[in-house]
């Protein structure tokens, strides 16, 4: 779908360098969830594989 790719969108970041690197342990993250409950990411993951999705907003 070349027409999308041809739109100038500003500098495309170096994804390899953006955020935690492949081969590194994902950093410890502790944040409240939608219920206001504190969630420790690795503790909640509890030895399972993980998918961490960064997205822009659930509000707009």
């Amino acid at each position, binding site marked *: *779908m070349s*027409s*999308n*790719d041809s*739109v*100038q*969108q*500003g*500098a*495309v*970041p170096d*994804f*390899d*360098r*953006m*955020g*935690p*690197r*492949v*081969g*590194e*342990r*994902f*950093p410890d*993250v502790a*944040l*409240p*969830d*939608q*219920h*206001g409950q504190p*969630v420790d*990411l*690795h503790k*909640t*993951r*509890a*030895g*399972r*594989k*993980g*998918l*961490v*999705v*960064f*997205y*822009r*907003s*659930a*509000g*707009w």
Partner: protein
Amino acid sequence: MVQLQRNLPDFERNNIAVFGISYDPVDVLARFAAAHGVTFPLLSDEGSKVIRELGMLDEQVYEHHAAFGITNREGRFWGVPYPGEFLLDERGVVTQKRFQKNYRERETSRTILEQGFGVAASSHGPEARSEAEGVAVRSFLDAGEYRIYQRLRVNVEVVVPSGWHVYGLPIPDGYVPLSVTVAPVEGLEVGEPVLSTPHPFRVEGLDEQFFVYDGKVSVAVPVVFTRSVGDQTLHVEVRFQACSADQCQRPNGVRLDLPVRAEKHVEWHS
């Protein structure tokens, strides 16, 4: 996030814990989760402290928006991460990072499961089946609803009876290769179909070199809606010519219709 929730049984079945992170305050996440039934953790990084610490801050959000005609420079966009996914193994080590080069596009949960984690997704969108002289064709969409700039695939599976084959490219004159066409729809961009590599084949007595598929053949056509055009039906045409070692059927084709609904909040934002 809603699509992830819909596919959550597949993630859970494959022992994958799912987390979302955004800069939304808890009450915004609570409203969203309640409205869409989201049960996996949506983490609230209000103030974008973690987003910043992890190096995920989109420092060019205004440029990215401007390139796509969004000129609102309200401060509220500042603090968003560059959207993407991190796949972790059982030890919590990052095995893969998935970002879209085109800032607007997103991928489906199905693609994350299949291409990211290498597991089959059980649920998919509408499916249609047909058959022409022994060749069975099935087509299905990744999902039953579309969002703008979310890549979907029109998946086609062709099952060729034992002893028969259909043709791939390159192909000698006079023969009809396997092809999948998605009829044009306003607001839909259709990409090049992706087929596996056919294998070489020669027929006794013929000079030409053929490349053929047999058994089950999968084709995927990437599509993306670039604006909301309401509910649509994708008309898929699959054409082929089935031959055995000593005879050929006439060129054949089937037409399949796949309905797809516009997701309620179909506008691009997350």
